[in-house]
């Protein structure tokens, strides 16, 4: 809260943020509105990349690289595999949207209006001057193993459970007693 932000002379960080934010929102809109399934996955890559850039501007380096590794590297590839495995139509397909478009638009407008109003009203004076070196891997690691050991271990058990669950679900020769 040192000095107030000025909207007339934007700093470099603000310009980079505006560009990244425009890219993220535009690509997210294309994910929701595109008529081709594979294109939706690829626009998702653009959104995640822009968000990783936002994390970098927020000095969260480790989270940014984990975002690139996990989301762009793993999750989108998994989603593309899912699209291929379910033999989704590769070209344009007409019946991608269900019929509740007006209700969805209403819900989205209400959500966006409430969230933006609350955020702008609640954090109008919040201004954090950016300093370099906030979220490097070393600091994150020492914080994990100093303050967050139990959640970390619980996450490893969760990952193991997800692994076993996916194997059990996808193998056809293992059947439950149900």
């Amino acid at each position, binding site marked *: 809260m040192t000095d107030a*932000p000025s909207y007339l002379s934007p700093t470099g960080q*603000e310009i980079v*943020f*505006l560009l990244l*934010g425009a890219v*993220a*929102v535009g690509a*997210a809109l294309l*994910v*929701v509105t595109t008529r081709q*399934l594979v294109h939706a*996955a690829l626009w*998702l890559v653009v959104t*995640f990349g822009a968000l990783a850039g936002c*994390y970098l501007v*927020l000095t*969260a380096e*480790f*989270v940014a690289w984990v*975002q690139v590794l*996990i*989301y762009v590297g793993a999750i989108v590839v*998994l*989603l593309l595999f*899912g*699209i291929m*495995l*379910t*033999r*989704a139509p590769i070209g344009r397909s007409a*019946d*991608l*949207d*269900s019929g*509740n*478009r007006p209700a*969805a*638009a209403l819900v*989205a*407008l209400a*959500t*966006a209006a409430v969230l*933006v109003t609350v*955020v*702008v009203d609640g*954090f109008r004076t*919040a201004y*954090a001057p950016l300093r370099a070196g*906030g*979220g490097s891997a070393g*600091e994150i690691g020492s914080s994990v193993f100093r*303050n*967050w050991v139990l*959640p970390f271990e619980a996450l490893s058990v*969760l*990952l193991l459970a*997800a692994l076993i*669950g996916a194997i059990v*679900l996808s193998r*056809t020769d293992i059947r439950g007693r149900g």
Partner: protein
Amino acid sequence: MTTHYLVLSALLFAIGAVGVLIRRNAIVVFMCVELMLNACNLAFVTFARQHGNLDGQLIAFFVMVVAAAEVVVGLAIIVMIFRTRRSASVDDANLLKY
């Protein structure tokens, strides 16, 4: 400055919500859920930046790991539904049994 990030996060969350509501293919619904999770992550990282500690970044990291686990199990379920029903549309999977 941090307000802009929170507004971006709110917009991405709303876009993800509308995608979940209007899309018919289960995998695209999944992508929109990921979009909403990412919006929450951005808010967490922004709050971490604003308060000057690392806890928000750590929670964002944990959210990413949980999202990865969720995608693995969810895609397995979608592929299994596709095997039995020959369709990945959420409208066709409207029965819990049979």
